[in-house]
């Protein structure tokens, strides 16, 4: 790699050729403010706060648009730079409403943070402020189905404009009028309609673009913990962070407060889609399964695990026994498994041992994988394509030897299972689906088979009360992806880990442990104590594959959102994980967990090329 060496504030810094002075400063931990610059989109040079002094150059230069050169001498702290920068901050705030107390960005706002550090102590502006749509939060106007816009707060950095043009490939946002009258607008005030709309709240450095989902829901100091995890709502496997609101156990409302993208240049860059961002409410929603249940006549009754397990064992034994006389038990196994591709690799690994323990090496034939696919309406040239497959782990299942059909992500094929059930050859079906409702696709035929008696026994292990679960004889409360440490293999074949951000509710259990307990009750020697145990065993059985080192993937625990800017610009958090910036720490939080492994294992330190 070609490098250049320059000095910034007297400190020699060597960076890759092609880096800008701002990028070099960031890499070296020199704090230079910026608004229009965003590492994921093109350079604009318009906000002017990143000015620095460069020897031999006549004027102050914007560091975001100046390439590093060998021997360059840069200063960010000399009085003329300090004054010039403060002058730009005064301009930025001259017409800004400063309604931080009612602004959702307040507390994690780069405009606040950088103004405190680099702006003048007070403003000399004494004219009435420019107002667009009203005052205060009444100025919030609809900005499409997912967003709200507050033009008074906008600093016209045009990040949103460039995001829509360059990443989304549909330039829905533009600026109308010019000069001091410039305002962000969409055609005929239609707002933004895009699967990537949520990213606009991340790229917006102020509280001008807000997601309806997060609006008025929390304040940054109320959600001090963040867990690095992976989205499981499609096979892309975006690296994400789950934000948790601090709240006592007994208080109402959910802990999971928002999902934001986490930088991974090889998977999702700085972005994630709206499906993954907004579709997390089911995890702590009304229909979440909190305890196991067994059928008693027409009703499902809550049952303690220790009461349920012997009953389940007996019914399964009975089901297997009923057809032991049948000649071709391998071709027509009496107990069949319908498994959603939302199951993690650990769960699939334990399940494989379970079915092979029960049915021998042909055991996997008794398992059918299911998932759904859908075309996501996106512009042809989008830089962020959401996958068709609405499940995270088809490739993980394939790698373990499950039949998932041809093609990179396969095609679900339930026809054999369905005919085996509808022809009355199957004594029991065990469903494993830790995904949201609908993950298995159409299950009405299965419900019908159970209800008309063609299928004598239905067991459902999952996270939410679906129609299928309500038709079951046994319902086993498992866990959703943010409740467990779990591996998923995305559509590129990358083995990635989701982390346990919150505990499963009530008596719900980790899915692998439910399967282990079931196996043990059926007399199998499945001896796993923890999720990491399973992961180690998995790694040991798959040498020379990416899984061989899966046990080294760091399991993260909730960590403190360590400083204000880290919180404020989630898409740029990678920087704060490795690089020091002299900004004030988060005030008033207590959860500072020590001894966390560096997250380098998750986030390679690399700028987008």
């Amino acid at each position, binding site marked *: 790699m070609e490098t250049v060496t320059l000095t910034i504030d007297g400190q020699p810094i060597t960076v890759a050729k092609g880096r800008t002075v701002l990028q070099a400063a960031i890499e070296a931990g020199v704090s230079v403010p910026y608004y229009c610059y965003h590492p994921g989109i093109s*350079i*604009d*040079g*318009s*906000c*002017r*706060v990143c*000015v620095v002094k460069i020897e031999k150059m006549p*004027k*102050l230069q*914007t560091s975001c*648009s100046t390439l590093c050169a060998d021997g360059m001498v840069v200063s960010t702290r000399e009085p003329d730079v300090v004054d*010039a920068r403060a*002058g*730009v901050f*005064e*301009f*930025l705030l*001259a*017409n800004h409403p400063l309604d931080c107390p009612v602004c959702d960005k307040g507390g994690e706002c780069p405009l606040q943070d950088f103004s405190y550090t680099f702006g003048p102590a007070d403003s*000399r*502006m004494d*004219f009435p402020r*420019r107002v667009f749509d009203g005052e205060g939060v009444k100025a919030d106007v609809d900005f499409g189905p997912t967003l709200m816009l507050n033009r008074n707060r906008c*600093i*016209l950095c*045009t990040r949103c404009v460039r995001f829509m043009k360059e990443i989304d490939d549909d330039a829905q946002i*533009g*600026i109308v*009028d*010019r*000069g*001091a*009258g*410039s305002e962000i607008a969409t055609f005929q005030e239609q707002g933004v309609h895009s699967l990537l709309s949520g990213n606009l709240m991340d790229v917006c450095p102020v509280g001008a673009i807000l997601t309806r989902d997060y609006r008025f829901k929390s304040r940054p100091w109320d959600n001090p913990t963040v867990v690095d995890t992976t989205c499981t709502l499609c096979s892309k496997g975006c690296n994400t962070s789950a934000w948790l609101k601090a709240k006592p156990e007994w208080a109402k409302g959910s802990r999971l407060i928002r999902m934001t993208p986490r930088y991974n240049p090889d998977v999702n860059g700085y972005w994630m889609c709206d499906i993954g961002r907004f579709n997390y409410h089911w995890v702590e929603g009304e229909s979440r399964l909190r305890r196991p249940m067994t059928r008693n006549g027409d009703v499902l009754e809550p049952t303690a695990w220790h009461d349920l397990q012997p009953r389940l064992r007996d019914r399964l034994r009975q089901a297997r026994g009923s057809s032991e006389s049948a000649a071709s038990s391998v071709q027509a196994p009496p107990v069949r498994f319908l498994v959603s591709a939302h199951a993690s690799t650990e769960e699939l690994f334990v399940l494989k041992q379970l079915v092979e323990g029960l049915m021998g090496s042909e055991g996997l034939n008794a398992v059918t994988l299911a998932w759904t696919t859908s075309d996501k309406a996106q512009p042809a040239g989008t830089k962020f394509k959401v996958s068709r497959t609405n499940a995270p782990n088809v490739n993980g299942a394939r790698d373990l030897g499950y039949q998932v059909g041809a093609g990179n992500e396969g095609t679900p094929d339930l026809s054999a299972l369905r005919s085996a059930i509808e022809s009355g050859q199957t004594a029991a079906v065990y469903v494993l689906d830790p995904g949201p409702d609908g993950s298995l696709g159409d299950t009405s035929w299965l419900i019908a088979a159970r209800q008309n008696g063609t299928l004598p026994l239905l067991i459902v292990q999952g996270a939410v009360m679906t129609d299928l679960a309500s038709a079951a004889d046994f319902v086993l409360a498992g866990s959703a992806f943010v409740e467990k440490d779990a591996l998923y293999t995305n559509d590129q074949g990358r083995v990635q880990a989701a982390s346990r951000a919150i505990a499963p509710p009530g008596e719900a259990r980790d899915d692998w442990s439910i399967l282990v307990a079931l196996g043990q009750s059926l007399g199998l020697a499945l001896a796993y104590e923890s999720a990491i145990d399973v992961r180690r065993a998995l790694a040991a059985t798959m040498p020379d594959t990416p899984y061989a080192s899966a046990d080294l993937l760091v399991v993260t625990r909730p960590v403190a959102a360590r400083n204000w800017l880290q919180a404020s610009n989630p898409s740029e958090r990678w920087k704060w994980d490795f690089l020091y910036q002299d900004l004030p720490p988060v005030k008033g939080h207590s959860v500072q967990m020590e001894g966390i492994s560096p997250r380098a294992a998750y986030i390679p330190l690399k700028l987008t090329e």
Partner: protein
Amino acid sequence: MTPYAPILTSHVGEPNSYSLDFYVTHQQGYEGLRKALTQEPGDIIDQVKTSGLRGRGGAGFPTGLKWQFVLKDTPNPKYICCNADESEPGTFKDHVLMERNPHLLIEGCAIAAFAIGARVAYIYIRGEFYHVQQILEAEIEKAYAAGFLGKNILGSGFDCDVYVHRGAGAYEAGEETALIESLEGKRAQPRIKPPFPAVAGLYQCPTAVNNVETLCNVPLIVLNGPEWFSGMGPEKNGGPKLYCVSGHVKKPGVYEASMHTTLRELIYDHAGGMLDDRPFKAIIPGGSSVPLLLPEHLDTPASFDDIQKAGSMLGSAGLIVLNDSVCMVWLAMNLLHFYRHESCGKCTPCREGCDWLYKLLARIEGGEGQPKDLDLLFGVSSNIVGKTLCAFGDAAATPVLSTMTLFRAEYEAHVREGRCTLTADWRAAHPVMAAH
């Protein structure tokens, strides 16, 4: 008055001066192009360099050098963009050239394209110049028909197309990179430089942006030789020059002269002297964006270098002459009304600063100003200068900084008296203007 026979505007007063026949018969029309096509493109650039031709659009940058910078080794097409946006207050020379002598520009475009290796020239014309566009387009058609444009021009194998593109009416569209953006169909907002247009301009291809008057000089240089051109005027300030004289003079208008000509000659000889014979107070010598000059500068030759030595800039050679009736606070306010309206809004200091300056000036002019406003005015202007994305910011702050430096007493009087003290008699005679 130094004796001088107009060249660029020699026939503009005559009927049909715009027509192709007239141009060919009276102005050696397209002989420069014919001559150029027998030479190497590099030779043309050398001649323009030797001539010392400097850009007439504002910055006075040597045109030959600009062409030389246009990237040679590229698989991409190259472009000539003629800047015909002419929106600088006090500037109206390109208008005359395009309306009365359009073929000179068309010929200049073709030679320039030949010199830099372009096959296409765009004339980006100001939104309000609708009828000029119609004349230009009609004459371009005739040039095609006569074989001066199009394929295989004059049998040389050189192809060149010229298109006219009318802007939507924004001052900022005259800034060269904003012009390029606008040509591409985007908002007329400047790009960060580097890369300069010579490397990545229109459609990211190498591009030379030249003013109308600049390009009109090119056929003359090719035809008469670079020495002829440089000999006409002070060193490094050669060639014929158009001056737009406006304001308090008896005969405002476009005057052609050599750059030996002094400001005094332009005002008193060419433009007939001061209106109503009132005393001269100040002059803005280069369009509204440059600092004012005072009576003691009247004998300065109106050349790029001499005006710069005097503390201002020749800019677009728009001379705005002001007599003693002009209140300098009002002048600054008037100009800031323009700049505030025309700021493209892309960068923070100019977008927020121009609006703020205008409000301050209006307050002071209206007699509501306080002593602190004067420091503030100076502070805000200084926070704009040198900190913006394009030169507009400097241009907008200049009227304020210049009037404050030269006429601070007038500002102080406004604040102290709560009114304008200067022009009571003039105001009485001009009630409509006084209402400002």
